[in-house]
């Protein structure tokens, strides 16, 4: 079982200074290799001796992976760009504030200084049982300890659970989905670019991973097209401790209103399933309708269709319903919430 140790376990540390070198090492090591970005997720695993990689590839020296670049069609953010840099970047704040708002609510300032955007979207599940090293489905075993009558499952999934009921804990992921971001992945054979929503996978596809990265693959950058630049954004995160916590639920939306009706909208929710969910049905249902409380009410009800609560997380259903409602018609109502958006 998990025992916090004061020192790191022994492993070989590789510190490449280029993407090519990093990718080469990761390809050689396969499942024995471990990608270290900011270390905010990795160090827990390593110190607890639950994940025991032979080789850790520290990407902090790869300058190609850092920084925000303006492109012909938007911006490209290196995967190793820190969350603080994302929050403070002037172009992001001006055109893609949804991402800045979501990144600003990640953990604490210290963690945002060290944690990276690539690490935030690629972090592992925070289920107690999984993180404690128990042999659950996600760890390769044959049981979910959280999905039992006695299991502590207050933070777990209400949608799309399949054996494992852990949820994706990323705050930036739903914002990136709402912004229609593209994730750039370097594999041993080529470079792939996938839609943000396709970067994440549920247990029905692979119960041991939250994303599509396989051993040897590397997330190098995230591209945000200008499609939604300057749109009406909404982000809200609900957590137990407002100073520093993972989301119980969060919601992100980008909306373009014309002639008083919703012209285009993208909505994503995280903390409800093992992957951030883009609410495509809701988007289709509200398109062409006025962004008011009635539309929001309808959207909220539609969003939670099919939700199955566990023993201790039924509260997430009305919570998700209301968050989705606010993304459309309840922005004014949401002003009193502890959301820090300016």
């Amino acid at each position, binding site marked *: *079982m998990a025992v916090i140790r004061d020192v790191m376990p022994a492993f070989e540390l590789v510190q490449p200074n280029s993407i090519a070198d990093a990718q080469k090492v990761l390809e050689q090591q396969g499942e024995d290799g471990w990608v270290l970005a900011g270390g905010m997720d990795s160090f827990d695993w390593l110190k607890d001796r639950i994940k025991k990689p032979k080789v850790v590839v520290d990407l902090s020296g790869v300058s190609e992976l850092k920084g925000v670049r303006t492109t012909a069609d938007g911006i490209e953010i290196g995967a190793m760009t820190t969350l603080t840099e994302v929050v403070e970047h002037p172009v992001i704040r001006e055109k893609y504030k949804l991402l800045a708002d979501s990144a600003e609510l990640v953990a604490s300032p210290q963690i945002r200084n060290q944690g990276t955007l690539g690490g935030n979207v690629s972090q592992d599940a925070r289920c107690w049982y999984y993180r404690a090293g*128990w*042999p659950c489905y996600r*760890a*390769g*075993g*044959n*049981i*979910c*300890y959280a*999905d*039992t009558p006695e299991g502590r499952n207050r933070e777990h999934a209400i949608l799309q*659970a*399949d*054996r494992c009921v852990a949820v994706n804990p990323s705050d930036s992921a739903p914002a990136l989905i709402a912004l229609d971001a593209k994730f750039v992945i370097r594999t041993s054979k080529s470079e792939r670019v996938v839609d943000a929503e396709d970067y994440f*996978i549920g247990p*029905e*596809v*692979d119960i041991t991973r939250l994303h599509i990265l396989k051993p040897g693959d590397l997330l190098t950058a995230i591209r945000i097209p200008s499609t939604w630049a300057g749109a009406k954004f909404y982000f809200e995160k609900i957590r137990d401790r407002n100073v520093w916590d993972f989301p119980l639920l969060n919601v992100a939306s980008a909306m373009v209103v014309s002639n008083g009706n919703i012209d285009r909208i993208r909505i994503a929710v995280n903390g409800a399933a093992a992957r951030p969910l883009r609410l495509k049905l809701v988007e289709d249902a509200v398109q062409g309708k006025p962004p008011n409380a009635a539309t929001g009410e309808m959207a909220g009800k539609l969003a939670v269709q099919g939700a*199955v609560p566990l023993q201790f997380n039924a509260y997430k259903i009305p919570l998700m319903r209301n968050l989705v409602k606010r993304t459309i018609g309840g922005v004014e109502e949401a002003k009193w919430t502890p959301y820090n958006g300016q």
Partner: protein
Amino acid sequence: MDPLQWAIDPWGKTVPIHIAWFLIWVAAIAGLLFVIVHAIYVRYFAKPREFEPEAAPVILAKIPEKVPRHSLTARAFHWIMAASMFTLLFTAFLPRVGVQFDWVTYHWIAGTVLTASVIFHIFHASFFLDFWSIWPDRIDVRDARRRILRFMGKPAPPPERFAKYPLENKLYHGAIIVAGLSAIVTGVFMMFRVRTIFFPRNPYLFSDMTWGMMYVLHGLAGVGLIALIMMHVYFGLRPEKRPITKSMIFGWMSRDFYLEEHDPARWPVEAAASPSRSRETKTEGLPDVG
């Protein structure tokens, strides 16, 4: 290489969690090797088969041109079971070799179909067919001994023609019973661990050790079925077995093939019987492989 994967449960006990997945490849290679060796043996080394003299002309004269073998019910069972079995194997093992998709729902639905069809088959075969025709009898054992002796070049009288099913077919059916029922029984219990429409989840139905053994048995049965199904498909496609395969589609085999392979005394056929309406003497789990 440990054929099982182990874990430490929350109480500190080492328990098995499932088979090691390299056994998938072991089973596939074993099945492939069997196919290759058998094909080479039949092509280059096998001697023409010899049987005891055929039955009296008066009996032969009563054999119809189309000999009824499988009723429509039996054939429907066979193909439903085949479809569910293939679905189960693909949904179980493709994700293990890198083909990722939403497999669990398809798997338990296919397992439910298989379970229902096997329950039906047991009932149907026990009360409406000749139950014993698929089990080895004394003549099978005696003839197996004769065939082995003759294969080794030792003197022995030729064996009799087969009853409805050759001994190899009966042994295969036995192997399918063991592997299939193991997979089904463990699979039904494993459905308590996932969300289905049948019963509420209860992962604490058994201890971690018992659950682990159940997963191991399910996995072993599964990989065993990979090899068995490969052999079955191979025999179903072999030229000399095609009349048997066709009988699982159309319900009958030709008089010539019947007389060449089967003994009317051991598998009597009614002369006037219509293939589609005749009452079978027995159906089996899968088409003949003998």
